[in-house]
């Protein structure tokens, strides 16, 4: 094949590449961007043009409580998830491969099992007459069943359960990227295990913790299913409130405005995460 012929096939590569993006752009443009923008528009036009929906949302104590709850739950879930995930990721990063693949199998099984199935299991496990309460009473630890469901405890347990894999898996990557020799060097320098953890291991895993934690926080903010099923009416979260406004109250204006607030907060945190870790790694875990 001649040089000219080769250039001939190489030349149209760039436009050809762009045309490959067309189906995706049409799909996302028409069925994602347009509907979301239409929703935004509705938040300032329904029932009448103006910002009254936002004023209502931000000025009312009940709504403020929902916002506060949403952030509180997301915050608590993130902290607990990070604390639980770190030791597991640490062990996963260094344990023998055979043991690690069993643990990875358990994590994937939990992650791939239907979301409603998992939540249903927790509903049964956590209810007043559920296994956990009975076991605790049977063991003589408590006399009265603990209120584990329809409150913050239930939501936290259910959400941490769902978020753990999203924290553990990227963190394993971060920890595996740390050279074990660095920690050996720290030990020979005289650092006790605690000092080596505090001064070396923790700072070196911090980027992974921050990225994973931010992702968990963002996901928790907008989570609907688990809080709706495990949470109580007194601590409703934003996503559930939005669904209710649309589905039960048919208040499109207010619902759209609340959705827009959730969108702005989420996207702002997502942008922050992108700046922290770069676009590739931010979404690379899936």
């Amino acid at each position: 094949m001649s040089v000219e012929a080769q250039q001939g096939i190489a030349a149209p590569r760039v436009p050809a590449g762009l045309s490959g993006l067309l189906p995706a752009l049409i799909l996302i443009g028409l069925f994602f961007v347009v509907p979301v923008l239409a929703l935004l528009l509705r938040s300032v036009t329904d029932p009448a043009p103006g910002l009254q929906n936002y004023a209502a949302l931000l000025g009312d104590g009940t709504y403020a409580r929902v916002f506060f709850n949403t952030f509180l739950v997301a915050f608590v879930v993130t902290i607990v998830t990070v604390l639980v995930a770190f030791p597991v990721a640490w062990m996963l990063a260094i344990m023998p491969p055979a043991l690690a693949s069993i643990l990875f199998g358990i994590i994937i099984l939990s992650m791939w099992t239907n979301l409603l199935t998992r939540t249903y299991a927790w509903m049964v496990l956590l209810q007043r007459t559920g296994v956990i309460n009975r076991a605790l009473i049977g063991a003589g630890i408590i006399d009265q069943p603990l209120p584990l469901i329809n409150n913050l405890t239930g939501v936290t347990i259910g959400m941490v359960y769902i978020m753990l894999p999203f924290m553990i898996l990227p963190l394993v990557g971060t920890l595996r990227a740390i050279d074990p020799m660095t920690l050996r060097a720290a030990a020979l320098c005289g650092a006790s295990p605690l000092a080596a953890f505090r001064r070396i291991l923790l700072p070196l895993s911090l980027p992974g913790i921050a990225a994973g934690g931010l992702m968990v926080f963002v996901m928790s903010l907008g989570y609907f299913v688990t809080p709706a099923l495990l949470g109580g009416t007194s601590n409703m979260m934003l996503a559930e409130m939005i669904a209710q406004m649309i589905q039960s109250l048919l208040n499109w204006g207010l619902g759209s405005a609340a959705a827009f607030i959730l969108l702005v907060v989420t996207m702002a945190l997502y942008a922050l995460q992108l700046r922290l870790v770069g676009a590739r790694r931010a979404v690379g875990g899936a």
Partner: protein
Amino acid sequence: MLLDYDRLGWLKIALLGFTALVAAFLLLPVVFIVLLSFGSSRWLAFPPPGWTLKWYQELFADPSWIEAALTSARIATMTAILAVTIGLLASFALVRGQFRGREILRGLLLTPMVLPVVVFAIAIYAFFLRLGLGGTTIGFVVAHTVLALPFAIIPIATALEGFDKSIEDAAIVCGASPLQAKLRITLPSIRIGIFSAAIFSFLASWDEVVVAIFMASPTLQTLPVKIWGSLRSDLTPVIAAASSLLVALTLALMIVTALLRRKLQT
């Protein structure tokens, strides 16, 4: 030493103990639900007073469960095919293309994964109401494809980035047309990525609850919608039976994935 498994001493015992607890925590609901589905107590007492298959009989006797499962399978299959096809084309452009705003476009295509589903759900619900697509199979498939697209693009683009393009060029120099080179050289090389994309986008649709809740009509509901409805009315053990079948399906999928990956990698 903190990263030397054999040199952790008592710390290893403590950390392994904690890890075992977390593993148990992760397994607990899955195992529990399977055991419960064979328990004879309608009130979900545990440990169950006896063992039975009646919840499975009840499940299979109810045509609405079967119907919902078939609907879900149909929608998820179509979603996976669409998402992988569109994702494959897009990945080539995103990885190979040399144009401005590439990163922005990549970010845009991945946004549906980040945006809270509830926002998208009400947006597409309102949109489809106007278009008359609410409660239709097409509506479901389109909405689910939007949500599944990032899960298709990420593994394919990752695989494509790891593929040395000069191999494709070599095929072209050998006389293959660019399309032939892509079909016969590049696609087989990134098949693990394509395969992962298919699994992930199938699951993204199969497990999707929120959009489905809004979109479902009395005549068209997916399995998650059916479960959701049952959960809200009562915690019948039939849900446990249905859930156990879903767990079995997940396990089967994991095994198939593991086997296929091993086969494709060699």
